[in-house]
């Protein structure tokens, strides 16, 4: 199945069908990265659309734009989509495209497993969103607290879509996690020691360790819920002596590490962007790496801070308050190191750099409001209100999404060979920064003044109409920003300035090769002698103009796609409660995995 260089180039141009087929069966990490990016961005737009409807509904008290039921579906799917189907896979797009290039590898360790991850993610996302088509989207919140999710209180298929869909998406994440750990540990170019790895690759590694440890926890929680709903078990059934708090502990034991799964990649991205545009290496490299590791580890010890209002008792509250406050330290250290990197630099405010600086500015606010409700008594007033909504949007939009946009503008030329337009990019940036602050900053007040989350209507007597209207206007300005970004993509596709190998003067390996990179990435595997190989004198062995011999790259395979189809068939069978469909899906899965295992990898 391996394709040689010359052979690959000619087949790609054959016909439209052949081109589509080549994308469907591709195992090239760069193509899979593009697929991840495009799919996740479309889902990001869908999640954003849901947010805009939510904001329209809340623009005034007592609004009746959507019904209570629709509203509950919208906020559930907004959260679920943004966490699992937008931000995580957008990060995955960068892992896929950038990490193998940054470590001087030809592909990931398991190219077909990589394709499998993508197709499972795509089909899982379609499965979950198909619920809208039959008017039964999940409606118990992205956190799906037991026992509201029990059949007694949620008899429809809404929760079935959710419990099955999340399990599917979890498979994609765990498979990708294992793949990237294996890739980063084993496939680094000669001389690229761990402490020479680019920080983005480091943060990817930390993130993937969290993924492979955290996702099994939520999978267990989801399997329990699935058994309760499908087979009448009693894990969360209070009447039978089950415990509703079991769900909360399992969910947040996953859920808090998940927060770091969302933010660490963005921290990695801006740790690349800031040095490049300050023309200085990252300040305190080792400390930034270790603080990322520490955040990953400490992230496991704080879950009960999501449960202060449950009444776990003063001792547990004190302990979890202390561990939560501790996380502020490595996070603060990262911020100080980014600022120190820019200190004394020669800062170019490209769009990418603007987004990176926007990340820092907004993340500081999100971090500080986080410290506020790390204090359990304060949290008792703030949790489940718009104060918390403000907090995590500063962290996840102001942090993760701005970081992702910084990454998009930074690596776009590497992916496409053309630069995104800087003037349009700046319009995009300013609309996004003004819109998001206008949308999210008032939410601090809205929460402190008594508005709970997840309510489709509120009493005009609360006096919160004006501030809610401001937040809605802000959300639409953000939406306009996203449209401007799409214009930029469309404009730059044909008219963007040619990028060249290294348009930004970056220091890491991906900038040593052409844009877009050839299918084999590197003409010869470089030997790396520096943390900043392109800036250091003699930082790496020079790359020859063309490969000295044919390079074997992994060939296409449709077994991963078919295996993903099998998994989704099983979920569909479970959803419609038709056993033969479940078994049929299982057969497809087993046959595909078997065929995949015995597929010859090299010609």
């Amino acid at each position: 199945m391996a394709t040689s260089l010359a052979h690959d180039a000619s087949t790609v141009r054959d016909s439209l069908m052949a081109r589509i087929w080549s994308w469907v069966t591709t195992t090239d990490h760069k193509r899979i990265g593009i697929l991840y990016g495009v799919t996740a961005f479309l889902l990001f737009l869908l999640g954003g659309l849901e947010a805009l409807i939510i904001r329209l509904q809340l623009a005034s008290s007592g609004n009746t734009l959507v019904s209570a039921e629709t509203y509950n579906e919208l906020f559930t799917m907004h959260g679920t989509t943004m966490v699992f189907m937008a931000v995580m896979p957008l990060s995955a797009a960068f892992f896929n495209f950038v990490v193998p290039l940054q470590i001087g590898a030809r592909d990931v360790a398991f190219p077909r497993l990589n394709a499998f991850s993508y197709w499972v993610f795509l089909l899982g996302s379609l499965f979950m969103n198909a619920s809208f088509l039959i008017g039964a989207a999940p409606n118990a919140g992205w956190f799906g607290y037991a026992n509201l999710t029990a059949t007694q209180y949620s008899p429809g298929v809404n929760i079935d879509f959710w419990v099955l869909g999340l399990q599917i998406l979890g498979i994609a994440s765990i498979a990708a996690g294992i793949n990237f750990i294996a890739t980063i540990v084993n496939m680094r170019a000669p001389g690229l020691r761990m402490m020479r790895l680019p920080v983005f690759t480091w943060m990817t590694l930390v993130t993937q360790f969290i993924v492979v440890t955290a996702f099994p926890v939520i999978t267990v929680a989801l399997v329990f819920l699935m058994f309760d709903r499908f087979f009448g078990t009693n894990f969360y059934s209070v009447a039978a002596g089950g415990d509703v708090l079991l769900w909360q502990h399992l969910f947040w034991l996953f859920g808090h590490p998940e927060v770091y799964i969302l933010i660490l990649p963005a921290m990695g991205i801006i740790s690349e962007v800031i040095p490049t545009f300050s023309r200085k290496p990252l300040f305190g490299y080792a400390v930034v790496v270790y603080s990322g590791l520490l955040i990953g580890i400490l992230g496991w010890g704080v879950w009960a801070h999501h449960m202060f209002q449950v009444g776990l008792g003063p001792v547990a509250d004190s302990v979890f308050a202390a561990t939560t406050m501790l996380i502020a330290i490595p996070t603060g250290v990262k911020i100080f190191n980014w600022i120190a990197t820019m200190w004394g630099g020669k800062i170019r405010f490209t769009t990418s750099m603007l987004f990176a600086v926007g990340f820092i500015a907004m993340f500081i606010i999100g971090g500080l409001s986080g410290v506020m409700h790390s204090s359990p008594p304060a949290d008792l007033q703030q949790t489940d209100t718009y104060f918390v909504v403000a907090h995590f949007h500063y962290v996840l939009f102001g942090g993760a999404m701005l970081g992702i946009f910084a990454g998009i503008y930074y690596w776009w030329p590497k992916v496409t060979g053309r630069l995104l337009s800087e003037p349009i990019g700046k319009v995009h940036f300013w609309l996004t920064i003004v819109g998001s602050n206008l949308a999210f900053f008032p939410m601090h007040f809205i929460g402190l003044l008594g508005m709970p989350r997840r309510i489709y209507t509120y009493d005009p007597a609360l006096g919160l109409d004006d501030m809610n209207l401001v937040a809605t206007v802000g959300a639409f300005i953000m939406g306009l920003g996203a449209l401007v970004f799409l214009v930029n993509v469309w404009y730059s596709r044909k008219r963007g300035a040619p990028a060249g190998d290294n348009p930004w003067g970056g220091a890491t390996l991906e900038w040593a090769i052409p844009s877009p990179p050839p299918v084999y990435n590197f003409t010869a595997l470089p030997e790396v002698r520096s943390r900043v190989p392109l800036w250091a004198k003699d930082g790496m062995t020079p790359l020859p103009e063309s490969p000295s011999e044919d390079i074997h790259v992994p060939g296409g395979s449709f077994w991963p796609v078919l295996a993903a189809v099998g998994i989704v068939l099983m979920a569909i069978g479970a959803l419609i409660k038709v056993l033969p469909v479940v078994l049929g899906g299982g057969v497809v899965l087993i046959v595909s995995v078997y065929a995949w295992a015995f597929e010859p990898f090299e010609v």
Partner: protein
Amino acid sequence: MARFQRQYVPRVNNAPRKHPHGAARSAAAVVLAAAVLVVSACAGEFPQSTLHPTADFGERIDALYRTIFWWAVGVFVVVEAALLFVILRYRERPGSAEPRHVHGSTLLEIAWTLAPAVVLVFIAVPTIRTIFQTDGTAPEGALEVEVIGHQWWWEFRYPEYGITTANEMHVPQGRPVALSMTSADVIHSFWVPKMGGKRDVLPRRTTRLAFTPDSVGDFSGQCAEFCGASHANMRLRVMVDGEGDFAAWVTRQQSLPVVSESLTGLARQGAELFANPAKLCFGCHIVEGISPGVLGPNLTHVGGRTTIASGILPNTTEGLTRWIRDPIGEKPGSLMPQVPLTEDEIAALVAYLQSLD
């Protein structure tokens, strides 16, 4: 570190560069907008504000929050100012020299690890003190109220007085109140911001809250844990009464309701409808001595409440009429069905309910 002391020479890039225009101006606009919001937030009347508590529980939290808030403001100003200084001072200008490649400073790393740690100590100590002060244990002699959360209304029981009521909790000013709370169905959360923080209300568990209200008044709150279709409509009130008013309220609640036979006119018709099994009322609602229902709120003294349907409608003729006419329209998912009634029958029932004061 020694390995990285070498001076690196980044590749020169000749792409045209631009300086940020109006960055400071836009930042100023955002700050101004925020300031306007702060001012408007302080000026208005906010019945569910956490910032103006009227009970010891809320006041302790507020004092702690203000401490943390000012620390956060301090950190915010220092760090954002540093960021602003750096991006203004070190932005590329024509002819600026290539930066020196500094790789780190152990001293600085230690300093900015310790600095947040020290700030956190100043936050953690009062935090832990407040946790133990507000853990829900009430002093001796507190008024015990049992809270039961239902989809989507609140039941309050006063074992001391043998009273059961719904959605409006009366408590006397100055006497500690001890809530012991549980849920009849899913998880809810009891939250009356002016009294203090929220506490989840869970099935098969008992959670506690304690507070001592210090001002007379009518304080609104609502369920804070998502509990299904009408979560937004699960509101409640804590009515803090002066001592005399509270005693009068207790006496009123302990009295038996008006007997149907003593009623006249429309209310009399309503009483008969209420007792008619075909109209479904008494299957769910208790009127002490008259009907045994247990699923819905106790209506023995419903006429004395200010709101109905867990705070979403005023307890007026119009409010009651709307509610009885279409409960599910008013409160999506409501377990109270739409009973087929003529407008005259509704008017009669409303008159009866209003007589139950």
